[in-house]
């Protein structure tokens, strides 16, 4: 898979916002050999999408939809930290 194609798929996946849907998109649209790479990459695209949600409750729900044992290990922490960083920058 070409990097540009992967990035395009990551952006589509991140637009699903809620983690189970994100994972579902990745599994449905990428070859299995790219699933781990996509999961490791999508955490950098999710914070911006989650921040676009209109309410704090929805943003919290989106973060909480990431399991503590998601792959890679720090996925949830990274996304939460990312949302807070972007929030402060607004």
């Amino acid at each position: 898979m070409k990097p540009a194609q992967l990035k395009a798929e990551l952006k589509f996946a991140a637009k699903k916002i809620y983690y189970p849907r994100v994972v579902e998109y990745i599994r449905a649209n990428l070859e299995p050999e790219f699933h781990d790479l996509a999961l490791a990459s999508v955490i950098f695209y999710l914070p911006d999408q989650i921040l676009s949600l209109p309410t704090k409750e929805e943003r919290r729900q989106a973060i909480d939809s990431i399991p503590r044992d998601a792959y890679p290990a720090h996925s949830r922490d990274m996304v939460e930290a990312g949302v807070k960083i972007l929030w402060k920058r607004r």
Partner: protein
Amino acid sequence: MTFAKDLSTGNAAEDRILEKLQAAFPLAYRMLGMHPDFDIWIPELAKSVEVKLDLMSQKTGNIVVEYYHNKASALTVSKADYWVFDTGEELLWFSREGILDCILSEGMEPVRIAGPSDRFAKWAFLIPLRILQRYSVSERAAQP
């Protein structure tokens, strides 16, 4: 450069950073073997440090922040409180949040890098040194 030489050069960089840290924190020590969580532990602060040697940054002007190398790696697995990049000319200190702040706030996109000694391509962010410096520990501390 071979993997063995890469490893040896990386270890030497970690030793140099450790020596500097031990001047202020004598109990600091380097983790031995393959230790993905962090490279140096500072008991006096209960803080950990990840050391990255990036000599190519002198030529390219970019720092490589790896996050996937056939499996999640570096940024996505390290538990280090601080990251220090040794460019060969200077040491740049960052918190993990500082690096993440740079990637997100600057809209960095991942790239695939295949080094001559790499069996698998790496996925990383190539961050211009002059941009990354704005997110260093000292620069962030100076922000209001």
